[in-house]
């Protein structure tokens, strides 16, 4: 059955929302309304093609070339990809990326969600904390990175200074100079900038919980903890889900903080795939090889995005 109201925007068929349009498009039977719709979409499509599609396809094309930017590009087939997966430094970057992404996403969402839940119980009293945490999200990563560089300095850093002050001198460490601690130093700094977003989305989800449910639970004698555990936590999960995906994607793409604090070091201990890509493409100017690692990172981002896209698609139905 087809419901038609004379507009492409409301055309629906059992085969899907675009089947009618597709039939008309390929049957050479476009209506005036179709042309208007295309005209309205055209600017977006043009800019999307220039800004997203062209660079994307160009990157994929370059990933099949052997090219330093000075010499003539030579076809390389899949050699950049096969070399990439034989490169111990790339596998190291994948391992670092996995640790980095899980740690940054897990910790920032855990902090954001926890603060959101507590804020849900006492919104007025926690307002200054929410503002403070979210404000960090608005600070540029470069500025935050420089601040954290000062905190984590071995000699004059704030963290080691505090440790020495409270008699824990033995715990003082060159945090960013030791491969075992550098990644956690950068994670701490990055989480500080990123926890604001999960707080915002989770708090918004909590705010959307009908007041009647909370009042009913209260009248039934539920404690604050029970309200938090059995009502607010499960009903704020949509906000948590969004926060996880956004933070996951942000972490995969993270560059500034790593560049400022460790530049991928020491001894590649903080070299993520994103940073590996920068080294290969910008520093070594191995355009084909760098593009191949970009494509791999892109695939990782797409794979991570699929659950959210599917989730959103099912919601829209």
């Amino acid at each position, binding site marked *: 059955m087809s419901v038609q109201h004379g507009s492409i925007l409301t055309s629906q068929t059992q085969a899907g929302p675009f089947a009618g349009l597709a039939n008309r498009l390929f049957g050479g039977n476009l209506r005036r309304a179709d042309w208007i719709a295309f005209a309205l979409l055209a600017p977006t499509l043009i800019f999307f093609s220039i800004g997203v599609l062209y660079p994307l396809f160009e990157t994929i094309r370059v990933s099949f070339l052997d090219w*330093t*930017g*000075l*010499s003539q590009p030579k076809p390389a087939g899949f050699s950049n990809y096969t070399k990439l997966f034989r490169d111990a430094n790339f596998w190291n970057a994948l391992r670092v990326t996995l640790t980095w992404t899980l740690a940054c996403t897990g910790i920032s969402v855990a902090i954001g969600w926890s603060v959101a839940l507590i804020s849900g119980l006492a919104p007025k009293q926690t307002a200054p904390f929410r503002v403070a945490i979210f404000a960090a999200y608005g600070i540029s990563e470069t500025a935050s990175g420089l601040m954290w560089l000062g905190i984590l*300095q*071995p*000699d004059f850093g704030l963290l080691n200074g505090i440790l020495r002050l409270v008699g824990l001198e033995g715990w003082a*460490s*060159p*945090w*960013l*100079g*030791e491969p075992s*601690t550098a990644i956690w130093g950068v994670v701490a700094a990055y989480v500080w900038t990123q926890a604001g977003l999960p707080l915002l989305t989770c708090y918004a989800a909590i705010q959307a919980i009908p007041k009647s449910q909370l009042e009913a639970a209260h009248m039934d004698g539920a404690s604050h903890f029970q309200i938090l555990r059995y009502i607010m936590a499960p009903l704020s999960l949509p906000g948590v889900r969004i926060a996880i995906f956004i933070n996951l994607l942000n972490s995969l793409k993270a560059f500034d903080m790593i560049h400022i604090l460790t*530049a991928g*070091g*020491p*001894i*590649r201990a903080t070299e993520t795939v994103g940073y590996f890509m920068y*080294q290969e493409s*910008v*520093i*070594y*100017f*191995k355009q084909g090889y760098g593009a191949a690692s970009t494509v791999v990172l892109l695939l990782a981002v797409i794979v991570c995005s699929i659950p959210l896209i599917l989730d959103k698609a099912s919601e829209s139905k």
Partner: protein
Amino acid sequence: MKILNSASALAIAAITFAGGTAFAAEKELVIFNWLGGSERDLIIALEEGFTAKYPDYEIKDINPAAGGDDPRSGIRSAMLSGEEFDLLLNTWPSFEKELVAADLISPIDAAWEQYGWSSALNDSWRNLAKHDGKTYGAYFIAGNRSGVWYRPDTLAKAGIAGEPTQWKDFLSSFSALKEIGMLPVSIGARSWAQTEWFENALLRTAGTAFAKELSEHKVPWTDDRVKETFRNLRDMLEADCCAEPGAMLSSHWTDAADAVLKNKKAGFMLIGSWANQRAKNEYGLTPIKDYSYMQFPVIKPEYGNAMSVDGKNFLVMKQAKNPEGAELFIDFVLSKEGSAIIAAQNLATPSANVDPSSYDPIVRKYAQILPLVDVFFVLDDLLPAELSGEFRIGLQKFLRDPSDASIDSVTAALEAKASELYQ
């Protein structure tokens, strides 16, 4: 002044396009000058000097918008985007080699003979810019990369009489520095400054001929002379020279300069001659009186004359619209007038046309020995960028673990990378 920045050049180009050729430069010279800060000021001063001497020339000075950590990225990006220029400022022989291989720069042998540049630059400098028997650049700035910097008052306080110019004296001076609560040597190994120690130790252990062979991968990185260099550096680490590895790996050369020259927390540091600008301009110190340097201590007497240097030259592009003007500019830079401009900016030139008395005392100290020593261009700039990256990381690994097993592992990794790149 006839030096145009990009904006004014664009404006003039627009007027010219719209209204005729009244503003078109009869002899325009386009220079790709990626430098920043005081070094950029020097190039601008040279350009002004040139246009003053040759008033029919106009210079367009191009500065790349971005280059990240490595200016070569900015240069490559500019070339890829179709930027056209006559002269390119360069400081990396390995990059020069890439440009030659890509047929992007022109040899200047004919101009060398025509202008008689051999009277200004000796053969060792000319050889640095030779590829496949042709000369591509003429060095006009030379820097000392073998200077071990210190404060005379620190050495006096530690009771160290005179500069410890021999390796064993250098190592034994550490105990005196430690006794007065100082770190003997500060190494900022977060990025690349650790390579300075290896390169100088290599020159003093195996000489410039071996270093040249190594830079060209004619000898493997697993050669025992490379390992011997590492072992010499290990002697320094075992003499308790330095901070813990984590502290070295999280600091830059600037931190080392602060520790030695400004805060008097450490005795020695090794870095290029630009430390002179920092000590004078940022710390407000007086050369020789407040701070000085000695050449890297002698490890083997037969290689005591070796010196690590860096330099800058101009390369004439194949695409140059004004190659004659480009060569004339190089001639000016090497001339008496050009050398005076360089000396006035507290930098040394390898040109024999310079008046050494015009140098600042720190610059004079190494400029005087430049013609007498066996110079070798800084190794890290001779290596392909990717090998240079592995080199820096290998040295970080060595600083954390200077054992024989670690030396074997680091040299094997360097050899593997070099074998891949020099195929």
